[in-house]
């Protein structure tokens, strides 16, 4: 009997603690990917922008040099 009471008490505390956890979350949850996981997606977006910019730059240089090579011949 005591065991069952203990288990019930444990269950009750568990439920309470989850309720407290939810209560701490004062901000309303939004379906916003960019703000989840400590905003790491923002870092990914910034790095991707730099990478894409870098590749566009190298690609344009490549095209310019190709044109130069054609003119020389």
């Amino acid at each position: 009997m005591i065991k069952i009471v203990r288990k019930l008490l444990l269950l009750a505390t568990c439920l309470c603690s989850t309720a407290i956890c939810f209560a701490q979350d004062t901000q309303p949850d939004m379906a916003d990917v960019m703000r989840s996981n400590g905003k790491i997606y923002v870092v990914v977006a910034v790095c991707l922008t730099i990478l894409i910019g870098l590749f566009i730059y190298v690609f344009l240089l490549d095209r310019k040099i190709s044109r130069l090579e054609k003119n020389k011949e």
Partner: protein
Amino acid sequence: MQKNWWKILSFLLLVYTIVGGFLLDVPRLFILNETIRNLYFHVCMWFGMMILFSTSFVYSIKYLRGFNLRNDIYAHQYAAVGSFFGILGYATGTIWANYTWVTDQSQSLGNILREPKLIGAAIALLIYGAYFVLRGSFTDMDKKARVSAVYNIFAFAMLFPSIWIIPRLVGSLHPGSPGSESGNPALNFKDIDSRLRMVFYPAIIGWTLLGVWITTLRIRLQLIKDKTLLHD
């Protein structure tokens, strides 16, 4: 377009590196924490540098075998982009070390400045710096190419003791030293986590291909400049 597939591959691999590198799961380690993700960036710079320097070394030997000036241009440009990667590796290493090696109060900047891996890497990069100084000091094309090709072979040979062997003999904070018991980090299959490997190897290929692309651009520019000298 068929000849340029590797440029697209490089782009795709680097996009994967950044997305996977930031978002995929990594081992949870003390001190390192999330900085283990630097493996995909800092370490890849050194791998890229080694591959570019090796290519430069091969072209220097090729130059000495046939004295074709074209090979000298290849060797010079591969060494130039390799050094650039090395400087990037060094710079990223300083940032990483600042937050992971200086962990408790007893460790000071002095300890880090005495770090054999840092000194070794600096020596290696300075030796390559001397390669460019040496090239610049010649006015005669053939003499420049010949002496700098020989020097390049020496510089490549000096890379191994200064960045690979000595730091592992005397002990260092850097992974791979006797204290860390990790043997050859990144290459040891028992040491590196398989989750890291999934991004790490594609990252090496991606960064190296980007380096090769930049090098080919520099080579093509140099070939246009020296068209009159090459007689072909």
